[in-house]
């Protein structure tokens, strides 16, 4: 696993989708792998994203709606979006209120796949 490559993916995604302010990748249990963040504590973000993703998965499983795609939290001034990366990692993005979530999904799927490849998942 190459940490620089992971970081390059995060930065590229941030540049590609207007409105993403912070991005981090973590293991599924919340240990930080790489972060392109500035105003949040990446370790804490990684841990919380792991918890949120876990809760999302349990909820999806309980109601029988199939595989979890992503967890989106919408707040007063922005969005928190968490994608599973393979079975063992996750990607968490923070966007402002102008984030085009539809466009993000289109752009982030290939990025998630590339991250999975880099991480060897």
């Amino acid at each position, binding site marked *: 696993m190459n*940490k620089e490559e992971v*970081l390059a993916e995060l*930065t590229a995604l*941030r*540049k590609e989708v*207007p*409105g993403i*302010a912070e991005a981090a990748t973590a293991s599924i249990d919340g*240990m*930080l792998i*790489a*972060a*392109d*963040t*500035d105003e949040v*504590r*990446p*370790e*804490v973000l990684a*841990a*919380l994203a792991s918890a949120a993703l876990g*809760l999302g998965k*349990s909820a999806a499983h*309980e109601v029988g709606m199939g595989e979890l795609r992503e967890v989106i939290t919408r707040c*007063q*001034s922005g969005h928190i979006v968490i994608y599973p990366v393979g079975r063992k990692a996750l990607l968490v993005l923070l966007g*402002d*209120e*102008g*984030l*085009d979530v539809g*466009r993000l999904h289109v752009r982030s799927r290939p990025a998630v796949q590339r991250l999975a490849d880099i991480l060897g998942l």
Partner: protein
Amino acid sequence: MSEPTEDQPHGVFLGSLLRRGRDGFTGTLRADGAVSGTVTLAEGRVIAASTAVAPGPESLLLRSGRLAEADWTAAYTDAAPEGRLAEELLKRGLLGEVSLQVLTLKALTDAVFAMAICGVQTCVATPPSPDELPPLLPAAPGLTTRALADETTRRLASASRWAAKGLTVDTYLFRTTDSPAPATINGRRTPRDLAFLWGQGLYATLYTLADLLASTHITTSDSPRLTPPPTPIPLTPETLPQRQKGTSPVNTFLPFRPPS
């Protein structure tokens, strides 16, 4: 000002807008390209426009602190479902009539500028449909497409002057040493990001930044500042938020399963 034609840059978008205006069109013009957005017309006048690259009326009001979140939410809850948010904001005395006009005109003009500068490849007009949500805060009486196209052309001309100096919608901005520029210009934000953060239009933000650039208070770059690789913080109970074990009702519904 001269008529935009289809072969000019931005000609497809502004040309299509002008044509709908002349036809007295009522409905939505959907623009797609580098970004997406919609322009809503009523009898040929533009009453609203929205895109992800320009802050809408809600962001302009809330982010700039012109309106408190609680006041907005209360008015929104009471009136937005029936589509009379504007009347409600006036009734509650949260905004004056002129302020409301100013806000809606600023937001729609900015959205159209943002779409035009990012590049629109296709424009599709759809008549109003009962399934479609009407714009939250339409401008009354709105702008003629002629006035809107002229204003957009003027803005595009300024923007291309700024672009020649290195300032575009997606350049990253850095403060120079001892700069009086806002600290939110931190090398990780583009004009679009700052527009949302400041609760200001995209064009107004570019204008502010152009002034700062001219007085050498800021510099531009195509690449964002990268934060230094995070220094590993030991994950201890002190550094992570904790909740009390067993207090969540989730365990009542989802029996704990050890990871397989």
